[in-house]
């Protein structure tokens, strides 16, 4: 009885493993015709020509998770680049953004597979340092894509070599939004404010810095202050409502992200000042895109996560083919402002790349 039971249990477990084999084998592709040997699709001026891969390089990509649009967009970016350039890419991710240890263990396992190169998006600044050290010891080149950043000091301390860091400049996000608003206000200018994210976080602090730098370039703009909205819609709305009361001549609000901007816009609407005050957001979430289309938010700045992943693979090929220019140790992905005038075209252009645009 017991033997039978245990036998059947084991059989069940093994049967369970047969399912992924079926999946895995169906995913294996015949080698495609190699294209390549052309200019980078998104950053031709900065990183230049991508050589034709001399073989089907095996690249392992570790994302934070796959449970929201942002990381799915990156996955699309990796996979489109895989098809375009004829390399083999495997994508890994932790079950959730809280699984910091699991992400490290996944990277340990990826290293066991001897990839030619590994792209990582660490969940925190330190959670995968130990595994990256092993990768460096085994001479696997590493590309750090987006977000948590393995600083040169951390690299030195832990014996890690990051070949290239592909990311978006948070400060540039808010510089662009501020510049757009400044130009919209023209010579007249006026009072402007920033509602920042949760103080202390990199994105929040960098976007605040970008705002302050940009405002300083326009003498006609008067910065009346930066308030912490903690990325929260309600809190941002309350702050905006208070400031509108105390500064009746306020002309513009730069939100640290779309949620913040949408909260602020609600306050402007409640005060009946939509004609006087311009509100900008950042990130291009679907709500914000709708809002820009409806002439509410004046602009938003998309994050370009798809492009980051795509560019990471282009950079990977350059590294693997020995055509990498060390000047590109840090690659800043290009950015653009989406406003009423161009947003319809932009949505059409990026529809295939960003999951959030599917419904437009």
């Amino acid at each position, binding site marked *: *009885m*017991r033997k039978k*039971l*245990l036998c059947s*249990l*084991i059989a*069940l*477990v*093994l049967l*369970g*493993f047969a*399912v*992924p*084999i079926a*999946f*895995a084998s169906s995913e294996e592709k015949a080698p495609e015709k190699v294209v390549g040997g052309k200019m980078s699709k998104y950053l031709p001026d900065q990183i230049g020509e991508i050589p034709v891969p001399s073989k089907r390089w095996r690249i392992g990509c570790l994302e934070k*998770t*796959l449970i929201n649009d942002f990381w799915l967009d990156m996955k699309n970016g990796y996979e489109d680049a895989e098809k375009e350039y004829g390399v083999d890419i*495997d994508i*890994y*991710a*932790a*079950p*959730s953004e*809280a*699984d*910091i*240890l*699991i992400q*490290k*263990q*996944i990277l*340990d*396992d*990826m*290293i*066991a*597979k*001897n990839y030619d190169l590994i792209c990582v998006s660490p969940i*925190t*600044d*330190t*959670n995968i*340092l*130990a595994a990256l050290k092993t990768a460096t010891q085994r001479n696997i080149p590493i590309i750090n894509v987006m977000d948590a950043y393995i600083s040169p000091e951390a690299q030195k301390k*832990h014996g890690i070599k990051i070949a290239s860091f592909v990311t978006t400049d948070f400060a540039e996000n808010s510089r662009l939004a501020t510049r757009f608003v400044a130009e919209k206000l023209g010579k007249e200018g006026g009072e402007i404010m920033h509602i920042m994210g949760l103080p*202390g976080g990199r994105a929040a602090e960098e976007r605040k810095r970008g705002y302050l730098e940009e405002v300083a370039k326009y003498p006609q703009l008067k910065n009346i202050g930066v308030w912490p909205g903690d990325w929260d819609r309600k809190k941002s709305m309350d702050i905006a409502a208070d400031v509108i009361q105390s500064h009746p001549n306020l002309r513009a609000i730069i939100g640290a992200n779309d949620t913040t901007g949408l909260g602020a816009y609600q306050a402007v609407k409640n005060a009946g000042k939509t004609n006087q005050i311009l509100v900008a957001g950042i990130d291009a979430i679907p709500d914000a895109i709708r809002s820009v289309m409806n002439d509410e938010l004046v602009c938003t700045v998309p994050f370009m996560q798809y492009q980051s992943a795509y560019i990471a693979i282009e950079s990977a090929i350059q590294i693997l083919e020995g055509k990498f220019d060390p000047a590109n140790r840090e690659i800043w992905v290009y950015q653009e402002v989406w406003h009423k005038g161009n947003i319809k075209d932009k949505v059409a252009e990026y529809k295939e790349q960003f999951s959030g645009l599917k419904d437009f």
Partner: protein
Amino acid sequence: MKTGYVFTFLRKHWGIIATLVGISLFFGLSSQYFFTFYNLLNILNHTTITLILAMGMVFVLASGGIDLSVGSTLGFTGVATALILKAGTPPLLAALCGIGIGALIGAVNGTIIAKFHLQPFIVTLGMLSIVRGLALVFSNGKPIYGFPGIFTTFFAGHVGIPTNIYLTIAIVAFGSIVANKTRFGLYAKSIGGSEASAHICGVNIPLIVILIYVQSGIFASITSFIYMSMMDAAEPLAGLLTEWLEAIAAPIIGGNSLSGGIITIFGTIIGALILATVRSGLNIFGVQPFYQQLFIGLIIIISVIADSIRQRRSRLSRERVVT
């Protein structure tokens, strides 16, 4: 005589041994990257955190209890020890403080459970939340970086093989002695087997229950040292879910019972190895994380079913003896 012992041992554990061997063979035959020294070491390395937490958990389970708060205790003692280290305290003293904090959390758990006769599930669930809250409050929600080299080298360095593997072997050996050779191990099992008979035999039940949760807290704090050394950072979110779930799953897969009365350290080791092997194998196989969750869950459920069948059979055989 000796072969008789080996035979009994094998008969008791052949199911999980066969499972582990089967899984390993399966992955080994399907991927050239599986049976490499690096990867086998990896699996051992990944087992350490689960196994040390599980060492505390087996005694809790043996007494018929459960400790859901070990993950949070791991997170909080990590943060607390990091703050103490950062204040310039010598590493040894800081580690002792960390262990003290872990023991204190366990003592609170045990005292509430023993003195108020409450369900361990509810008490430790509450503690899970309280201690996680403390971890977030003390760290402001942000990781604390950078510890003395001697600390990180001791708990997650590399001397031939990762030092946490040596440490785990020592702890498991210790746990095995406590479980099989000491009164504490015996009492823990007897409380889970039958609290009434344990009481009649003169076991100081409240004291033993408190000690059981204290040692669980201590093991959680030792785990936190390894965790923070691996990352060179104390993360307030460390041990949020997977770690403590596996700390409960490993003993159960290994043949410890949720209703108490049993301790099998060997089974727990195999249970932890099965979990780490499956995880690593699936990663090497390139199976998406969503499917992995599914398989791990499947294995846990199968083991719990096996556990319940085992219990029914042992109850039946007991009744047969009585009649």
